[in-house]
């Protein structure tokens, strides 16, 4: 069985982590906020109508927490995630 290697939903505060494919290419980056909870994902390897790359915000006010549908990158996100 291939392990998921999914990124954790909670990490070191104000950092980011990357998920890579089998060839080592970055396919997802997850940013953590000041409380260590995931704030946003940037997905590089898929579109599904939100463009490529696209972002997903996290909503921790819901129980359980929810990763929201994809959206276009903001200008700041584009700058920080240009290939």
């Amino acid at each position: 069985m291939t392990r998921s290697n999914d990124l954790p939903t909670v990490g070191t505060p104000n950092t980011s982590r990357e998920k890579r494919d089998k060839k080592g290419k970055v396919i997802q980056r997850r940013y953590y906020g000041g409380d260590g909870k995931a704030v946003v994902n940037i997905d590089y390897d898929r579109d599904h109508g939100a463009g490529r790359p696209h972002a997903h915000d996290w909503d921790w006010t819901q129980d359980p927490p929810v990763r929201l549908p994809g959206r276009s990158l903001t200008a700041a996100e584009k700058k920080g995630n240009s290939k």
Partner: protein
Amino acid sequence: MSARILTYKGYVAGWLDSSIHDFLEVLPVTSVSTKYALITCLDSNPDPASLREKSPELKSVARRSQVVGRGLLLPTELLLETDCRHQLFFGFDEVWFFPSQTIKPKPESASLLGPARLNQARFKKLGKWMVDNSCSLALGGGEGLNFVVPANGVAKFMLGYSIEQREPSLAS
């Protein structure tokens, strides 16, 4: 039965450190009980029907799928072919399998989607719909893979115990 094992009627819930995409590689095309698949979440979007014209990944199945509620129903054979050729599932997806295509829309009030593992309250909200529609398998991706299957005997305990697994620790 231990309170840690989540059950509803003949179903049991579990969890695997895997993904829908990887699991579909071992799902047999010929299984009668999983002849049709209902996609109710795709890449965190709970309205896959709205993505038929927008998602490049869905293009090849859009015309051959049927809208059920906000979900997309299609033959499992087509789903497996498509996901093998042009990956459809990347995480935060939800798919249900049935022996027939007479399916009522999934209740909006609960889902199998990660990152949280299933709990009894969420399971109860989904259970009646699963029984009424003869659901044979349910998969919810996110952080690992939530699943629900009909099971009995020792298999029910073994599969149910899987939900207790610790999350893998990732190297920094």
